[in-house]
């Protein structure tokens, strides 16, 4: 490396060195001449003698230059200039090659940028490889095995901090979700995070301005806030004087103490908080008596730590698992839950597991996109391979026109290595040019992908800014591509034995290396089969997902969320605000019916789970407890989303805080709680069942019907609190025009401080919930079409070349009276055979690739007959089309011209 740099340095100083050498030799001449003159020679003669003595100056300079050590560089430079000349002579080829390479490399880089951002990029903190995240296993009845979760109770954090000797620091944090940040009379929604006071110091992040939390600052009454760099720029105009200033979070005053550095945006992929507050600030925002003491029923925080030097993750895990289990075993006897078998199993059978966290803490975004992005990487890689095969064929065809030239050069003594090197230089120049062009394309592409994934979310919490990894990837892929498509043609066309080639009359009439170009086309077809099958599988999955009967009607429903808590309403007054908004929305023109609920029919925020453990006053044994999902809805919800009420009634306005408690169950819950009975009038817990509704799929199209419990939204209020803050409104509309603006106006007329967010139709929300599959279906269709186009070009090139080569033969056949359709078939049959060979290779390959995507498919198997049939049909059709044009040209061959041609 050093040597290369030194040589490059010399390159730039080359002209100076040349001049110096000339000066040096000039001095030598003068010195020699003067000495001879001093010895008595006449001046003229002395000069001539000196010159003679110096000898061949050009040779001397050449020899000297050689010692400077750039011989190989100069050769490379020669090859480079030669390549540039060849490409300039054939700009059409160069342009097509560079464009197709740019597309292929750009697609790969774009996907890799995302993959890098989601999976590979280490956290921008000191020694990220030392970070570990705490998870624990919970044994389940249903599966017998445990699931891992990453939530802990606060007393556990204190215990870990007090007792661990293997970690140098342990911190805890929790998301605050949406918060309302006020400053100088304006307010805005932001993402908040609460963390223990050692959060930044254990991570090793230094503040850009101000300071971070100091030790001991996380205590009751703590009201300081750290602001994220991006939020500081967008909301506060990057004003450093904000430090020490006052802001409000959900109407509670806080003091700003510091700004994070620009590169730090949180510790999990996709979550970039705008504001950090100490854990104990939670008491100011949402008081909860169980939060600090309860070890079993209140696990709400995530914990991570930093390994001490020379301590392995396994060592730390062994130590921490003991601390974890001891703590739980001590707490169990004094807990009110000590009699519960689930809690006992958690205490005695659960374990602590440390997860490496160099690239960030657990992240929902990473979980849902890791596999789709890896599949897309595979898809993009295949497209690039198809493009490579195409270029290899083009180069091969071009090289066969230059066989004579190569033969001559070989005969004159050029080494084959030198020729191959020249060939490779040319293909690598093409690939690097493609890579260069690909870089901006990839940047644009990855931004487009991020916009697609975070549809509608302007503060997409994922940065795909190019880093050295992405540049290294592009460079490596370009280089590899160049070698890949250049090597085979280079080796193939320099293998020629000069003798026979030079004896042949016309350049280009030589035998083509039959097997290689055909193999390449077959490979293109096989790879296209993989891509098109993949696209087909995802399109079919998408179609199946859309056609599932979800139990509600998606069309003509607009949804929006309002959060009264963020506007400073205490939970007991929030209910009346929501009631007022609902009343106004119901009478809007164009709105057929309106309702409110906590969870939307399709929800990307959360789902609510509960247990039914008492039926008609009879306590269920622990193993018979019914796990239910639940929602709280206003009167009119079922008619708004078109879920049929099977028996009984919907909630009514009279089901309020003071009325007797009522619930509605779905058919699944009715069936499991009251087999063969009418559930109406029975009690679940304290509430009486007043209605039964049709099953609907609670968490999207992939869900199964499951027991579902509905509480009345406005009765649910006072004792259970609006713990989830916001409420979603659903409107069944006749026409959407202007509706969302009118809705905003109505909400503002109740209170202008009420934040309205996530306004979207149910169809749009469903589309977002299917984003992973849509992304895969769209991109694999696009890439599949691209591969098909490339394969088509490959086919066309191959067949056109074959026809040109066989012009004489076809001419003779025609002259001897061959039928035209026979000639046509002659060309087409070859196309067809090659296609079938490609399909035969591609279908099993596609099946193998589909195994990776299995978990993303829905309603179809990995060997979906319809998809395979469609793929085969498309490929044969396209290949026939590509073969048709050369075939028709074969028909137009004039026998006389063809025969004279030889």
């Amino acid at each position, binding site marked *: 490396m050093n040597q290369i740099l030194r040589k490059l340095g010399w390159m730039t100083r080359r002209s100076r060195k040349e001049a110096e050498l000339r000066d*040096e030799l000039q001095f*030598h001449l003068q*010195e020699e001449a*003067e000495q001879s003159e001093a010895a008595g020679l006449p001046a003229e003669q002395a000069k001539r003698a000196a010159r003679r003595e110096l000898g061949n100056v050009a040779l*001397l300079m050449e020899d000297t230059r050689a010692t*400077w*050590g750039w011989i190989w560089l100069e050769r490379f430079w020669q090859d480079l200039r030669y390549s540039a000349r060849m490409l300039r002579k054939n700009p059409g080829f160069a342009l097509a090659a560079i464009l197709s390479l740019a597309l292929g490399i750009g697609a790969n880089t774009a996907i890799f940028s995302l993959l890098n951002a989601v999976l590979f990029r280490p956290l921008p903190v000191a020694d990220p490889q030392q970070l570990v995240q705490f998870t624990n296993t919970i044994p389940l009845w249903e599966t017998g095995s445990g699931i891992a979760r990453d939530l802990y109770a606060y007393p556990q954090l204190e215990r870990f901090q007090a007792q661990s000797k293997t970690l140098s620091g342990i911190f805890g944090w929790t998301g605050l979700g949406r918060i309302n940040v006020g400053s100088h009379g304006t307010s805005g929604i932001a993402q908040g995070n609460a963390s223990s006071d050692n959060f930044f110091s254990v991570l090793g992040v230094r503040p850009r301005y101000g300071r971070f939390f100091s030790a001991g600052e996380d205590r009751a009454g703590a009201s300081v806030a750290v602001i994220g760099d991006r939020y500081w720029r967008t909301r506060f105009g990057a004003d450093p004087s904000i430090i020490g200033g006052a802001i409000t979070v959900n109407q509670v005053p806080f003091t700003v103490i510091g700004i994070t550095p620009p590169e730090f945006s949180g510790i999990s992929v996709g979550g970039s908080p705008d504001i950090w507050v100490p854990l104990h600030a939670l008491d100011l925002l949402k008081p909860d008596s169980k939060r600090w003491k309860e070890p079993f029923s209140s696990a709400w925080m995530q914990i991570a730590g930093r390994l001490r030097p020379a301590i392995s993750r396994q060592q730390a895990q062994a130590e921490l698992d003991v601390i974890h289990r001891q703590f739980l075993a001590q707490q169990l006897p004094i807990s009110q839950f000590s009699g519960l078998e689930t809690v006992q199993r958690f205490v005695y059978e659960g374990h602590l597991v440390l997860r490496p966290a160099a690239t960030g803490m657990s992240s929902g975004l990473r979980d849902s996109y890791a596999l789709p992005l890896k599949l897309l990487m595979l898809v993009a890689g295949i497209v690039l391979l198809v493009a490579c095969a195409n270029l290899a064929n083009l180069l091969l065809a071009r090289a066969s026109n230059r066989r004579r030239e190569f033969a001559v050069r070989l005969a004159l003594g050029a080494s084959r290595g030198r020729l191959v090197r020249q060939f490779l230089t040319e293909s690598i120049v093409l690939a690097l040019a493609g890579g260069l062009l690909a870089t901006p394309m990839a940047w644009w592409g990855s931004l487009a992908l991020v916009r697609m994934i975070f549809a509608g979310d302007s503060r997409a919490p994922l940065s795909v800014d190019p880093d050295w990894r992405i540049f290294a990837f592009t460079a490596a892929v370009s280089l590899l591509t160049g070698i890949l498509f250049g090597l085979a043609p280079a080796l193939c066309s320099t293998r020629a034995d000069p003798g026979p080639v030079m004896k042949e009359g016309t350049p280009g009439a030589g035998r083509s290396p039959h097997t290689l170009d055909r193999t390449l086309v077959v490979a293109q077809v096989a790879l296209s089969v993989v891509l098109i099958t993949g696209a087909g599988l995802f399109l079919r999955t998408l179609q199946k997902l859309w056609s599932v009967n979800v139990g509600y009607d998606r069309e003509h429903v607009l949804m929006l969320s309002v959060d009264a808590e963020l506007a400073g309403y205490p939970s007991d007054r929030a209910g009346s605000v929501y009631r007022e908004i609902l009343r106004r929305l119901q009478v809007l023109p164009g709105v057929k019916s309106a309702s409110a609920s906590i969870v939307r029919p399709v929800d990307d925020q959360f789902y609510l789970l509960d247990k039914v453990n008492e039926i008609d006053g009879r306590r269920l044994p622990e193993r018979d407890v019914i796990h239910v999902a639940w929602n709280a809805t206003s009167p009119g919800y079922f008619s708004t989303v078109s879920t049929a009420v099977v028996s009984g009634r919907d909630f009514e306005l009279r089901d309020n805080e003071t009325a007797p408690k009522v619930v509605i169950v779905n058919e699944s819950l009715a069936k499991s709680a009251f087999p063969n009975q009418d559930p109406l009038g029975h009690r679940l817990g304290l509430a009486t069942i007043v209605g039964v509704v049709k099953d609907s799929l609670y968490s999207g199209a992939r869900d199964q019907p499951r027991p579902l419990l509905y509480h009345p939204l406005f009765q649910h209020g006072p004792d259970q609190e609006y713990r989830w803050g916001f409420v979603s409104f659903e409107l069944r509309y006749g026409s959407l025009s202007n509706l969302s603006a009118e809705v905003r106006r109505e909400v503002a007329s109740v209170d202008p401080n009420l934040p309205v967010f996530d306004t979207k139709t149910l169809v749009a929300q469903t589309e977002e919930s299917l984003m992973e599959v849509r992304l895969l279906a769209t991109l694999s269709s696009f890439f599949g079409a691209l591969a098909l186009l490339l394969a088509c070009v490959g086919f066309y090139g191959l067949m056109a070349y074959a026809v040109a080569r066989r012009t004489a033969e076809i001419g003779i056949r025609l002259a001897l009276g061959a039928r035209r359709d026979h000639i046509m078939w002659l060309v087409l049959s070859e196309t067809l055979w090659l296609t079938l060979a490609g399909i035969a290779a591609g279908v099993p390959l596609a099946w193998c690739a589909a195994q990776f995507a299995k978990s993303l498919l829905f309603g179809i198997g990995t060997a979906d007959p319809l998809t395979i049939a469609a793929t085969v049909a498309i490929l044969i059709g396209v290949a026939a089309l590509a073969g048709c044009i050369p075939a028709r040209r074969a028909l137009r061959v004039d026998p006389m011209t063809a025969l004279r041609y030889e």
Partner: protein
Amino acid sequence: MSIEANSRVELLQGTLDLLILRTLLLGRAHGHAIAKHIQRTSEDLLQVETGSLYPALHRLEARGWIAADWELSERGKRAKYYRLTIKGRKQLQAEHAKWDTFSRAMGLVLNPLNREEA
């Protein structure tokens, strides 16, 4: 093998480097001076070809055994002066030792009878 007084000998491959290094041990010098010095001290037996002197100087410079600076010559002209580096000094010692061994070995083989005199 006898040598006539004013005939010149061809330099053996690789020996020019050693001669240059040895010459520079006496102090810095420009190319012309180096050539003349070798010629003089070898009593004109060794004639340094300019065509191989300068490539050799540049090669030694590239290897870091000698370094060069532009200075004014005794006659007030700009000249490129070479000097020995520390690395070059070590190289000279090694080469010198190698040459001694080599020439002794050559002597032993060529003049086996004169062993005692050698």
